[in-house]
């Protein structure tokens, strides 16, 4: 069990038929995770619900896993990367058809957050996932490794590279104001 709200609840904590509880407990954090990776509000809702629905469909099996939440988190981070790429394609299509593009601002998060996480989303797929799980889910490297099904060392490598790249890009973009 990882934290107080039981996001990493064990099978016992989840209970036999407590999918509703699992849903309510996990939904907001899955949306946050999906948004961090995909950058899409409605898309993050869909991704979270999609993953939860997939969980529901196989609930009898998943609830017996040591960490059901990790299972659904993996679905979200994997699909979110694809969703982000598709979203970029859609935006490009809009530009192509319209010949212009209005400035986009995501209303629910600050411009700084939007900007920084857009930089995160430009990273390679695995690095995006590692960064999102590390910061949005506040997971340890061991926990990230469990969700992604990779070694702790691999997580460490991806995280280090991601940080290096982000620090470099941020400095180049705006050395005075960016961290």
């Amino acid at each position, binding site marked *: 069990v990882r934290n107080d709200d039981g996001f990493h609840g064990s099978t016992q904590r989840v209970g036999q038929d407590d999918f509703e509880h699992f849903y309510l407990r996990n939904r907001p954090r899955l949306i946050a995770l999906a948004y961090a990776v995909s950058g899409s509000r*409605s*898309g993050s809702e869909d991704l979270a619900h999609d993953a939860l629905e997939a969980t529901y469909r196989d609930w009898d099996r998943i609830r017996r896993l040591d960490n059901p939440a990790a299972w659904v988190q993996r679905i979200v981070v994997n699909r979110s990367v*694809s969703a982000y790429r598709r979203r970029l394609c859609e935006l490009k299509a809009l530009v192509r058809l319209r010949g212009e593009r209005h400035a986009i601002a995501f209303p629910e998060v600050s411009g700084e957050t939007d900007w920084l996480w857009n930089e995160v989303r430009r990273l390679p797929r695995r690095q995006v996932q590692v960064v999102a799980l590390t*910061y949005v889910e506040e997971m340890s490297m061991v926990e990230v490794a469990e969700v992604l099904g990779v070694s702790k060392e691999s997580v460490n490598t991806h995280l280090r590279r991601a940080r290096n790249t*982000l620090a470099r890009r941020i400095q180049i973009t705006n050395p005075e104001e960016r961290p």
Partner: protein
Amino acid sequence: MTRLDEHLHDTAEEIRRFAHLIPDHRPVGQPGRRSILAGVALAVLGTLALVAVPLALRAFDTGRDEPPVGESGQTPAADDIEAYLYDKADLIGDLADWVAEADGRSMAAEASAWEGVAGAVYVSATQAAEEHREMVATSLPPQPPFDRYLASIRIIFTDGADEATRSDIARLLWSGSGGRLVRITLLFHETSLRYEIPSADDPAVTTTIIEVQTDGDD
């Protein structure tokens, strides 16, 4: 902790707060699992395709009437899924026609994508569609305990439309799908509307605007 770390932590916290503010759109008054399922929003299958693509796909008729999923819910072979998706291009093409009929100015709907779910076939269908970028996925029949189709559609329009027109489009899409759509997202150049279908049993409440954005992004 570096400044970058601090910044990532701070912004991640903001994202978490934002996520908690997003309402749960599950229908009210349907307790238990069914309410969860009825309210489930489906991820958008983002296969970009010109309207011409699904229209062209309409000509590809394999004559299949039934989806490649058995009562057992076993995942069918990839070839079967592909054939099924091509089969359903007829429906997509019809929808494209309805869209054009409702809003002639927006004839050139750029991207349309369907995503359906049906038990174990869902993931495989998604994967199959993603492997064929010009393929438009469509809804698959429900599996127990589903009592209705769950499907979403996402279309990008090249120009704007007034609210009445948008509503007409959503209603046409809904009726054209035989009531199977539960979520419709229409993307215009400056606004994004999401229509959620609260009940398959009450056509009078077929569409409800639950989200309006003014930035044209999402």
